[in-house]
């Protein structure tokens, strides 16, 4: 596994739990890429019911599974979708219908009840729907996956950037990584190498001489130094900027925006994006305007650029798996996109593929398996 974000960590857990010898190399701290910096929302699927119903179905199923597997890293807050103007209200019908179809439990409640539940909500609430959104601690979720994988025999190497992926005679041969902790070069031989480097997947693929057309798309989030809402608050409208406020610990986090960036490194936080988040957030929770800012930060979604989409490699709407056997690197795969919420499902699909390649017959068990607590994770052997 190259990369220990939610994708890599979930796959490592799945493989290790099937008894497959697994090593994870991560260039920095686990979850130091997109995953740790995301909006921390365990999607109910509500956001996707109209535009992308398949994603919505995946979200609600995975949402329920993850709550059971890792209760220690999930805050069961619940969520609300609220309409605050005529345009939002016009979306209500399609939204409720979409929830019904996708199987997202949605309960419409009177606006005044919504304001009783969330006293911070604007007076102009016109409609409100309860959904089972929740809040994740993405860093600790990744550590839980990795800790469980370690307990099942996987080796995890943080602070170990991959420098080369050797391909010989059309097959991936080994990976060379710089283990900064032990100040040594690691040479990992494996019949299957999986590139889960998120927005850096293009760069890692290039090391193997293959191409993955990733277009990193960044988003800004603003964390306030006050928890203004107890539930996740979503604007009832097609997904747009600044329409979700996630309560996490003592903060409320408003997000996000979306613009293309060069890579996942050194993503700027444009001040006008921060202002926009506060403006949009204040429409839902007026107190946003007065609350002091705790931090403004950004992460990059690993979006796949158009040209490769049509070649049938797409296994799920939300993410893509590239099997580079066709590009002359048998055994090398790239997994790009998706959501932290649906990582377990992505992992199941990828691990099924790996088993097929290795000729191993092992059923996926991650639907039932509970994860170890995050504090069982160890950065190095014997640590």
């Amino acid at each position: 596994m190259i990369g220990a974000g939610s994708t890599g960590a979930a796959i490592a857990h799945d493989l290790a739990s099937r008894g497959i010898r697994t090593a994870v190399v991560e260039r920095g701290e686990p979850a130091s890429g997109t995953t740790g910096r995301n909006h921390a929302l365990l999607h109910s699927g509500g956001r996707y019911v109209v535009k992308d119903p398949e994603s919505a179905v995946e979200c609600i199923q995975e949402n329920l599974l993850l709550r059971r597997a890792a209760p220690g890293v999930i805050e069961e807050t619940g969520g609300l979708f609220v309409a605050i103007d005529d345009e939002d209200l016009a979306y209500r019908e399609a939204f409720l219908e979409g929830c019904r179809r996708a199987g997202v439990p949605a309960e419409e409640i009177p606006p005044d009840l919504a304001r009783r539940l969330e006293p911070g909500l604007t007076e102009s609430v016109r409609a409100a729907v309860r959904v089972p959104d929740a809040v994740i601690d993405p860093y600790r979720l990744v550590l839980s996956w990795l800790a469980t994988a370690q307990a099942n025999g996987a080796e995890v190497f943080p602070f170990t950037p991959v420098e080369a992926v050797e391909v010989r005679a059309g097959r991936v041969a080994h990976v060379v990584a710089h283990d900064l902790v032990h100040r040594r070069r690691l040479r990992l031989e494996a019949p299957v190498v999986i590139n889960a480097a998120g927005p850096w997947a293009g760069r890692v693929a290039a090391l193997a001489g293959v191409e993955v057309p990733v277009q990193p798309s960044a988003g800004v989030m603003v964390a306030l130094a006050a928890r203004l809402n107890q539930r996740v608050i979503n604007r009832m409208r097609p997904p747009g900027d600044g329409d979700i406020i996630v309560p996490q610990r003592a903060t409320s986090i408003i997000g996000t925006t979306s613009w293309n960036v060069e890579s996942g490194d050194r993503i700027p936080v444009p001040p006008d994006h921060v202002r926009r988040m506060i403006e949009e957030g204040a429409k839902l929770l007026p107190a946003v305007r007065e609350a002091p800012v705790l931090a403004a930060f950004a992460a990059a979604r690993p979006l796949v650029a158009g040209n490769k989409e049509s070649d049938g490699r797409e296994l799920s709407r939300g993410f893509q798996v590239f099997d580079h056997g066709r590009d002359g690197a048998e055994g090398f795969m790239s997994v790009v996109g998706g959501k932290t919420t649906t990582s377990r499902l992505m992992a199941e699909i990828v691990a099924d593929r790996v088993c097929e390649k290795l000729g191993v017959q092992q059923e996926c068990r991650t639907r039932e398996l509970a994860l170890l607590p995050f504090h069982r994770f160890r950065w190095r052997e014997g640590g």
Partner: protein
Amino acid sequence: MSEGEARRRPDWRAWFAPRGRRTGMWAFVLNRITGLLLLAYVFVHLAVLSVLFQGPAGYDRLVRWMSSWPFLLFDVALVAVLLVHGLNGVRLVFVGLGAGSHRQREWFWAAMAAAAAVFAYTTYLILAPAWR
């Protein structure tokens, strides 16, 4: 790497390293230092008292010493150390019982203010007779 290299060792220098630290640490350091000084004093005290083994002549010498200026100044310093250690100790008893631990900084300054007041008075008591 072997496991041994990753094991840290007790670092006592941290007890006397107030860089970047705040009131609570200064209070702690002060209490360690005054505590050590008081311990040292007990031995000095015993050594001084041992002149009493020399009988009445020793007793006379002792009284003369004790009313000499250096000794009086020593006494003044001793009172300061005792007050700082003792009153800070009282603060710690209360704070340790969970009473006002979030006000420990204020308690420290209150204890030190009290120490300063009592110190001023006792200094007067000790030095005034010698002045005359």
